[in-house]
């Protein structure tokens, strides 16, 4: 192993294996560490070791042991040491380290050094490592350079430093004045691209920090208005100069050293645009009245005068568009900005497409119709090979979706689904989620077309469609009032299902993994068999075929397909009342019979009950098995980002144990995402659930609520018979929580060994709706919560109660989280309560 930096690098590169590389690095690291500890090491050797240390830093190794050594190098008089020392300090130290105070004196000396390169090194380092102490102590030195130096090289760096310093420490506003900037702008020998970049930075930092500075002065009773006027006067003097510089830059490109593909210094142009933007963001009327027009003219000039075919020109045009939108300038400029972006969409370069889509997405609230106009280009981006562009285009397409373009856009989206590959599942899910939702909010005149779209997406994406969307589709179908349309859908669906089934010749392929398709087919058979049987001219939809489909599907169903079985049983029962073929009816009966001994309790229970109904005379059966009533559908938020949408989908719903609940309550950020699963009306969302409830309530009059995946801790929506009850507050209930909206009382009913019964009384002070109370107990205990009685909606002054059963041991402690709405506004409360009892 050699001793120079070069051989060290070579050794690392030459390592055959990862472990060999590690051992080389570790050996060197140890060696450098010992060397640097040696006080008698010559500066030359020291330098060598610091270089190695920097290489270790690049490799991602620990370098803290060398930090002081960098400072020692800086202390040397030789340029070569200082240069390396400062470079290493910037890399190995950061602003948060106390060590920096050691630098104060060294840097102060260097800032006043006669060699401009040493001054420059110190300035660069100060710009990187601006700790509060360094800023405070070294500001005078930097300001001195600004005021006295005639050297462009130093002034430009001092300006950058100053900008950083005043943005770090607003007390510097006391001593810094924009006069320095004006002097520099007025001194022709100092004005060049480098200094203008720095001037821009200082003005931005000054203007951005000014409001905070005024805030600070307020407490000292200083005359704020006078201060503001000084700012306005200073800025008003500076603006014309900047506008002039910017215009000159944009007009002529005479300096080859600043040319970037035919555009003169796009960096400086963008910096000056940004500077003016920050000034106008102050929204000071005096400044805006005087200059905003001129700025608007200038932006128009830049937008028309910059070459859109070069990447350097594009970056300026993009900056211009962004500025127009962020200042919310007038309509004509907005259109100009949107057109710039639309041109980007039309280009070949993916980067400009991406930024354009991204920016348009932000502009939609300001000017939807202007974005609308470029829909064609946006739709075209759907088919871009780059997935990030695809997803942006998708978001944008949904964001501009409305009545006027829904047919065209959705046709295009379905087209997209058709050609979309497997790796785009996330995007496909996003489309389905939003597409189904879009139909809820946007009226479509052609219902038949809408149903055709549903059919198409079931076919294309049914294998991974979420249950909620399937329910949405079923609800929509159920609520279709036009018989022809409904018939059209069902016939088409069943035709495809039965045809496939025949072609597949009972092979397993038939019941492929298109879950949603199967479910919808089964449901339609149950609900609409009579409708299509009477009207259909096609021979394939016959009593026997429908029956056979159900029978075979039943045989292929595994124990895991509970959901399908669940739907299938109901469909079987319903179909039996709609057909006349005796053999078919008997087959259907057999389906139900085989499941009366099913291992799954749920299915078993259902089958037993259905079998009872099955044997009833038609007169009794018919009314029970009527088609469903119209369903109400819950509104969901439509627009969310792709990332969010897919993450919600991926979350599998699982029964929540009390432990989970506790976790949720403690870190309640996940609650929002999952709350759907716990909404009181959850089970009502599924048509099937409704069917069962109706059915069972009618026949048996029992309140046999079977919540499936949902755990008992939910507060179920109130059943009707409870509605008349009113709850009285017992006299011995103690107040455990009280705020502006609600008072909660607690009463411990009984304490036994390892078991406590507690009642909570919620007394409302406003009209509370959709109250959801979630409680958690300590880890040694378990909690079972009852429903809210009489209702989760509580009028002013009324009381609802909820019983809690706690098992386990330890002190009785509750953490309660409440979510509710008052006049439609969401509220949530979280509190802890300790009872005096323990179990």
């Amino acid at each position, binding site marked *: 192993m050699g001793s120079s930096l*070069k051989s060290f*690098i070579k050794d690392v*590169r030459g390592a055959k294996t990862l472990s060999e590389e590690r051992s080389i690095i570790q050996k060197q690291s140890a060696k450098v560490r010992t060397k640097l500890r040696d006080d008698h090491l010559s500066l*030359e050797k020291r330098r060598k070791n610091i270089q190695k240390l*920097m290489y270790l830093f*690049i*490799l*991602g190794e620990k370098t803290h042991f060398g930090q002081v050594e960098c400072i020692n190098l800086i202390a040397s008089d*030789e*340029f*070569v*040491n200082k*240069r*390396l020392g400062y*470079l290493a300090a910037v*890399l190995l130290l*950061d602003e*948060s380290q106390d060590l920096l105070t050691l630098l104060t004196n060294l840097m102060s000396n260097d800032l006043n050094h006669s*060699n401009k*390169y040493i001054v*420059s090194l110190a300035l*660069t380092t100060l*710009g*990187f490592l*601006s700790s509060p102490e360094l800023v405070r102590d070294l500001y005078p030195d930097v300001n001195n350079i600004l005021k006295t130096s005639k050297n462009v*090289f130093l002034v*430009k*760096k001092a300006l*950058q*430093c100053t*900008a*950083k310093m005043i943005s770090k420490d607003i007390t510097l506003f006391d001593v810094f004045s924009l006069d320095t900037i004006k002097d520099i702008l007025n001194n022709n020998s100092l004005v060049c*691209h*480098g200094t203008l*970049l*720095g001037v821009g*930075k200082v003005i931005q930092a000054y203007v951005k920090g000014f409001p905070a500075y005024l805030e600070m002065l307020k407490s000292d009773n200083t005359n704020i208005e006078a201060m503001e006027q000084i700012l306005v006067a200073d800025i008003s003097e500076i603006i014309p100069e900047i506008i002039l510089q910017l215009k000159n830059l944009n007009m002529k490109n005479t300096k080859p*050293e*600043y040319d*970037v593909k035919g555009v003169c210094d*796009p*960096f400086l142009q*963008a*910096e000056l645009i940004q500077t003016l933007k920050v000034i106008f963001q102050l929204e000071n009327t005096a400044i805006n009245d005087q200059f905003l027009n001129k700025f608007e003219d200038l932006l128009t000039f830049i937008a028309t005068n910059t070459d859109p075919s070069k*990447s*350097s020109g*594009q*970056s300026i045009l*993009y*900056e211009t568009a*962004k500025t127009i939108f962020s200042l919310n300038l007038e309509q004509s400029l907005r259109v100009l900005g949107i057109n710039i972006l639309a041109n980007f969409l039309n280009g070949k370069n*993916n*980067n400009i*497409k*991406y*930024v354009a889509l991204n920016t348009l997405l932000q502009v939609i609230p300001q000017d939807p119709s202007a974005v609308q106009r470029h829909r064609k280009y946006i739709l075209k981006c759907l088919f871009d*090979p*780059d*997935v*990030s562009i695809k997803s942006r285009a998708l978001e944008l397409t949904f964001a501009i979706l409305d009545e006027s373009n829904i047919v065209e856009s959705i046709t295009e989206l379905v087209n997209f689904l058709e050609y979309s590959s497997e790796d785009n599942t996330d995007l496909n899910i996003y489309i389905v989620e939003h597409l189904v939702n879009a139909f809820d909010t946007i009226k479509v005149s052609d219902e038949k077309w809408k149903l055709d779209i549903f059919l198409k997406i079931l076919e294309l994406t049914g294998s991974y469609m979420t249950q909620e969307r399937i329910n949405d589709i079923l609800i929509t179908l159920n609520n279709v009032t036009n018989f022809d349309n409904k018939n059209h859908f069902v016939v088409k669906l069943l035709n495809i299902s039965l045809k496939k089934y025949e072609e597949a010749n009972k092979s397993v392929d038939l019941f492929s993994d298109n879950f949603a398709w199967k479910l919808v087919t089964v449901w339609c058979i149950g609900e609409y068999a009579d409708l299509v049987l009477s009207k259909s001219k096609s021979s394939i939809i016959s009593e026997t075929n429908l029956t056979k489909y159900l029978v075979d599907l039943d045989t292929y169903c595994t124990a895991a397909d509970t959901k399908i079985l669940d739907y299938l049983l109901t469909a079987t029962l319903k179909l039996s009342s709609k057909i006349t073929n005796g053999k078919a009816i008997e087959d259907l009966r057999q389906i139900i019979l085989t499941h009366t001994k099913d291992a799954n309790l749920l299915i078993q229970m259902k089958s037993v009950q259905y079998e009872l109904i099955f044997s009833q005379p038609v007169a009794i059966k018919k009314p029970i098995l009527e088609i469903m009533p119209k369903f109400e559908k819950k509104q969901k938020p439509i627009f969310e980002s792709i990332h969010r949408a897919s993450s919600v989908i991926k979350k599998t719903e699982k029964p929540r144990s009390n432990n989970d609940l506790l976790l949720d309550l403690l870190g309640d950020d996940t609650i929002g995402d999952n709350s759907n699963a716990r909404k009181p009306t959850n089970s009502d969302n599924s048509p099937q659930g409704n069917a069962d409830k109706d059915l069972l309530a009618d026949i048996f009059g029992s309140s046999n609520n079977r919540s499936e995946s949902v755990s008992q801790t939910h507060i179920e929506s109130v059943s009707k018979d409870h509605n008349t009850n009113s709850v009285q507050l017992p006299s011995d209930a103690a107040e455990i929580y009280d705020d502006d909206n609600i008072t909660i009382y607690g009463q411990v009913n009984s304490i036994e060994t390892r078991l406590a019964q507690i009642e909570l009384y919620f007394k409302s002070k406003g009209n509370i709706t959709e109250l959801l109370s979630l409680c958690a107990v300590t880890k040694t205990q378990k909690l079972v919560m009852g429903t809210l009685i009489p209702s989760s909606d509580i009028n002013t002054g009324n009381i609802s109660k909820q019983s809690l059963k706690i098992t386990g041991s330890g002190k009785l402690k509750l953490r309660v989280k409440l979510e509710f709405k008052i006049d439609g506004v969401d509220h949530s409360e979280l509190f802890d309560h300790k009872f005096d009892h323990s179990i």
Partner: protein
Amino acid sequence: MANIKYMLLISRQGKLRLQKWYTAIAAKEKTKIVKALTSIILARKKKMCNIVEYGDHKVVYRRYASLYFICGISQNSDNELLTLEIVHRYVETMDTYFGNVCELDIIFNFEKAYNILDEMIMCDGSITETSKSNVLNNIKTMDILENNDNLDRVLS
């Protein structure tokens, strides 16, 4: 505008060749970012755009021969296109300095690569000098000063 949060140079094999942080970030977080971005960016196909969203900010990158130049910028305020131009300016400047720069030049002369970068970008990642010749002249003068020191030492 473009305020660069950090600049990373990563080889096609996923080796870090240069790292420069313009904001104070904890060492652990730095390692995490480098690791994540290496795998994200190396996996991207050639035709994809050069902008990636990562965590709370955006990352723009461009590949030059065997090296990826990666810059972190803020989500909304920064100009992605301009950042790419800055990276390009840096590469051009190094190209002139080294004479047809390649990965090896940067590996063995990382100090110079840092020197050039520091002349171009200062403070919290804002561009300070846009003229290639200004940057190179200053770097060369400093190189001479450095050599004079060495010469003095040899002579004495």
